[in-house]
């Protein structure tokens, strides 16, 4: 079971600084840098937060920038140091790559003294440690661990200021001189000098090259040192270097920001379509080099853009760039509305049909009013909703909404069924009645809600504490200067300067929890197939019978209750009873989160139901469920049905998805896999399928087009592939319903 889990990255933090361990020379210069950064911090430690940040960034930039590589059309590569300052890419605020430093000390003992001095200095000074230290005792008790990838627990805090989306239109309109003037009397006055120093460094580095590409980069940089950008190339260059300096890696509505520059260059003959595409692809490559996992969201399309016609031209260019590059970055996302330029939808479907998995589709006609309700803002502000990372929303440059908490709902249910004890750690989470005392479904529901509520409330408090600590630590000038409201108030984005300061909580295991509660209701309380204590005992044994079967090989028999659990109707099949429980679980946790905002002083506190590896990682330390999920197995992803449990076809899945209220959360994602045929001769039916889903209230779609690898995986693990349809001669079948020989036959046919 562990083999395929082992490829899952536990964490992305400290990903970048590990480069320093490659050689003794490299480590030595990395330590030189870390010591210089540390000295700058120490010298300004008792000064203002703004002065300290300015001093730190003077060391950090241009030191962590890398020169352009062969083929780059723009300057802008970065490699973070062993200590430094960042909102999220490496760590929160002032960070120290402790793991990398510790490993470096083991590998290069001769540097031990320097490394120990750094570790000692930063021991209690990093912003994440300061946040943890600010927890009141009761909160520390509710959230005892930060090691969500390694330990069992219901809820974990996260340390980051994630998802910030900046007002790049403002940057490109003002240029550096304009922004410098605007920020002159604010805590962000160091921003433009810092950036200009980097530009000068890049101009010198690129200008030394004799090749035309290097010269073009130098010329471009020279043009934007003071004046606003005048061309598409200059606009991309300024945007990109600003984003790298800000430490942000989700870019919002780039079509609205870059579209007018693209349109003007094309119309005036400064660029051909092919040249513009080449520049766009080059930007995509730099994004891929920056982050190769969960971020790099580029949003195109949708309601509320200021330059929709020009923006659509960029949107079409962006889709072409994604088709050209065929990488996993950026995460191009298309906001759709019923009255948009039809070419956007057509090109998007072309790209998806080719198996690019991009763009990710969003339905503005549902999402804008839903976001208005969820965030409690006007629709004009809601129209700025911007998915970032794995699918959480912020309100463009109007809000902060970092996802700083994780809750595992299946673990909450597991704790509820064990009298308040987490059976994996033995830790008592709450004083709750034992399973023997839970004599009705509503009693089970109530204890489950108790566990959820207490942890949601704890995470909301953590969220506010984290904002307060961050606010005292640094103004985050690069972010604040392009966040609506901050310059006007002279206040940092996380300190209350942003117009809307929200927070989000990532929920995992939603589907398994709903299906498990439904199975408990049906098997224990409706049909009396098993008592609750007996069911809990079977779950604790992971559906294995106590005795050894057959006397040899140590193979254990599976408890017959497993089949009964699996046979109970599941979410994702358009079954009203099963889906009602999913709605109830959804409404409960979303409501619990929303209630917290006024209690802790946030403008909103909302659930996000997203996908990344957390469903797998948290699943490893979560016991078997009454839904039939085995102990340690991954949990369902996002809002999706449990893989293989959606047996009724794509319309049924989509109907189930559309039942979950979108007006109470800050983003939910749905993965869908279709055979290539849907995007070939059957494309009109695919269009009808998605458009009907959107008209029925669907919010979002992430579409994978299956290939041979999927079929092979379906043969190995049929329980996960119940949704896979294949065409056989004159009819279609569920692939997993076919006997192995027939599957082999299909597999051979689809070799091309």
């Amino acid at each position: 079971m562990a083999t395929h889990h082992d490829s899952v990255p536990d964490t992305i933090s400290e990903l970048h600084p590990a480069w320093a361990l490659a050689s003794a020379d490299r480590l030595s210069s990395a330590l030189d840098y870390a010591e210089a950064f540390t000295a700058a911090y120490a010298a300004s430690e008792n000064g203002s937060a703004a002065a300290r940040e300015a001093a730190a960034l003077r060391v950090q930039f241009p030191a962590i920038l890398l020169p352009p590589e062969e083929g780059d059309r723009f300057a802008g590569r970065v490699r973070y140091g062993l200590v430094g300052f960042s909102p999220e890419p490496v760590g929160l605020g002032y960070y120290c790559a402790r793991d990398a430093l510790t490993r470096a000390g083991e590998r290069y003992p001769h540097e031990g003294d320097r490394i120990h001095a750094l570790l000692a200095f930063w021991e209690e000074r990093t912003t994440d440690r300061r946040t943890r230290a600010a927890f009141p005792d009761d909160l520390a008790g509710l959230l005892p661990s930060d090691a969500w990838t390694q330990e069992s627990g219901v809820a974990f805090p996260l340390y980051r200021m994630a998802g910030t989306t900046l007002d790049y239109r403002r940057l490109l309109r003002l240029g550096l001189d304009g922004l410098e003037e605007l920020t002159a009397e604010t805590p962000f006055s160091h921003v433009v000098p810092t950036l200009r120093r980097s530009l000068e460094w890049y101009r010198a580095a690129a200008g030394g090259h004799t090749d035309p590409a290097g010269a073009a980069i130098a010329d471009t940089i020279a043009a934007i040192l003071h004046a606003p950008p005048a061309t598409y190339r200059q606009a991309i260059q300024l945007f990109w270097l600003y984003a790298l300096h800000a430490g942000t890696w989700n870019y919002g509505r780039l079509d609205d920001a870059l579209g007018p520059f693209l349109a003007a260059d094309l119309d005036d003959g400064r660029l051909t379509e092919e040249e513009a595409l080449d520049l766009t692809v080059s930007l995509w490559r730099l994004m891929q080099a920056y982050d190769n996992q969960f971020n790099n969201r580029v949003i195109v399309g949708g309601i509320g853009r200021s330059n929709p016609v020009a923006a659509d031209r960029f949107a079409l260019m962006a889709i072409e760039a994604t088709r050209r590059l065929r990488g996993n970055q950026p995460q191009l996302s298309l906001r759709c509305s019923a009255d948009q330029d039809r070419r956007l939808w057509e090109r998007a479907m072309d790209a998806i049909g080719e198996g690019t998995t991009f763009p990710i589709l969003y339905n503005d006609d549902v999402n804008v009013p839903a976001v208005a309700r969820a965030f409690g803002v006007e629709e004009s502000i809601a129209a700025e909703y911007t998915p970032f990372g794995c699918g959480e929303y912020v309100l463009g440059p109007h809000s902060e909404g970092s996802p700083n908490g994780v809750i595992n709902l299946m673990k909450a249910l597991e704790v509820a069924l064990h009298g308040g004890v987490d059976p994996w750690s033995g830790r008592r989470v709450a004083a709750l009645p034992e399973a023997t005392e839970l004599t009705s479904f509503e009693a089970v529901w109530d204890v489950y809600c108790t566990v959820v509520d207490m942890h949601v409330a704890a995470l909301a408090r953590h969220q506010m504490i984290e904002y307060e600590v961050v606010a005292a630590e640094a103004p985050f000038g690069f972010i604040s200067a392009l966040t609506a409201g901050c310059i006007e108030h002279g206040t940092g984005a996380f300190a209350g300067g942003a117009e809307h300061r929200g927070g989000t909580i990532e929920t995992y295991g939603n589907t398994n929890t709903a299906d498990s509660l439904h199975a408990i209701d049906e098997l224990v309380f409706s049909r009396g197939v098993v008592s609750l204590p007996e069911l809990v005992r079977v779950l604790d044994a992971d559906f294995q019978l106590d005795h050894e079967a057959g006397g040899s090989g140590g193979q254990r028999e599976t408890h017959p209750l497993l089949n009964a659990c699996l046979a109970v109707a599941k979410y994702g099949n358009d079954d009203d009873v099963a889906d009602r429980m999913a709605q109830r679980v959804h409404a409960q946790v979303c409501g619990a989160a929303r209630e917290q905002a006024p209690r802790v002083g946030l403008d909103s506190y909302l659930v996000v139901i997203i996908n990344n590896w957390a469903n797998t990682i948290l699943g490893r330390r979560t016991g078997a469920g009454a839904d039939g999920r085995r102990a340690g197995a991954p949990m369902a992803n996002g809002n999706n049905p449990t893989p293989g449990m959606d047996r009724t076809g794509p319309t049924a899945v989509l109907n189930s998805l559309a039942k979950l209220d979108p007006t109470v959360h800050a983003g939910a994602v749905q993965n869908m896999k279709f055979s290539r045929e849907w995007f070939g001769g059957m494309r009109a039916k695919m269009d009808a399928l998605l458009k009907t889903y959107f008209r029925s209230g669907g919010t979002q779609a992430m579409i994978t087009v299956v290939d041979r690898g999927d079929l092979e995986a379906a043969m190995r693990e049929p329980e996960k592939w119940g949704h896979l349809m294949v065409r056989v001669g004159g009819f279609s079948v569920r692939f997993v319903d076919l006997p192995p020989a027939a599957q082999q036959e299909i597999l051979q046919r689809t070799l091309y």
Partner: protein
Amino acid sequence: MAGAGNRTDGTVGMTDDDGMIDEAGATSETSGIVLDIQRAALHDGQGLRATVFLKGCPLRCAWCHNPESQAAYPETGASGKIYGASMSVAAVMVVVERDRGYYDASGGGVTLSGGEPTQQFGFCRELLRAARRAGIHTCLDTCGELPTSRLIELVPLVDLFLFDIKLADAEGHRRWTGVDGTLIRRNLDELLRRGAAVHLRAPIVPGVNDDPVHDRFLRDLEATGQFVAVERMPYHDIGRSKYEDLGRQPPAFDGFLRPGVD
């Protein structure tokens, strides 16, 4: 559910005078034996469709890819898989109705298939009536082997016939399907005479009808311009492993790898 268990003799419930399969009340006007309901089916008529597979077939085509649909009663395979369950017209329609938005957007609807759906005639007719009452587009996927009077009764209820055409000559038809095809041809003519929309589906089976004579026959049909479409469907031997699951010997013919030979 009737729970007929694992009958492995390959017999089929016989049709009585009323056209109802007399299998312990397994099928009637209000309920019948449904093998599966496939939602968002792509290939059973226009648009996105719900295809309702009814069990029972009067033919025994040697190349049958759905042998589990031949018997009119539920069966249990050696693998434990259960083929078929009793459902009422109302219960089928509850499922069908759920995708109405997708039918409207795509020009789709419901398709009755099988087996041969008209084997459960009363159930089939009432399903078509219910769909018609609900304003849902109807397709009937038929082999054409049913009393002509029955077919005529269904014409006003069916928007599009998916009509199988297998072989031109009576001797070959009997050899490979168990019936000589005379009634099938007469029924096809009757549908055309009545102006029904017919989409012909022609399986092309190696060693059976993948020859120039049959190709000419299909091209001649196509040339009449009387059909919505004439579709040639490639043969596959996917049915073989299902025969094995049902404990039955797959028929030997040129298109199959014969048991014991491979």
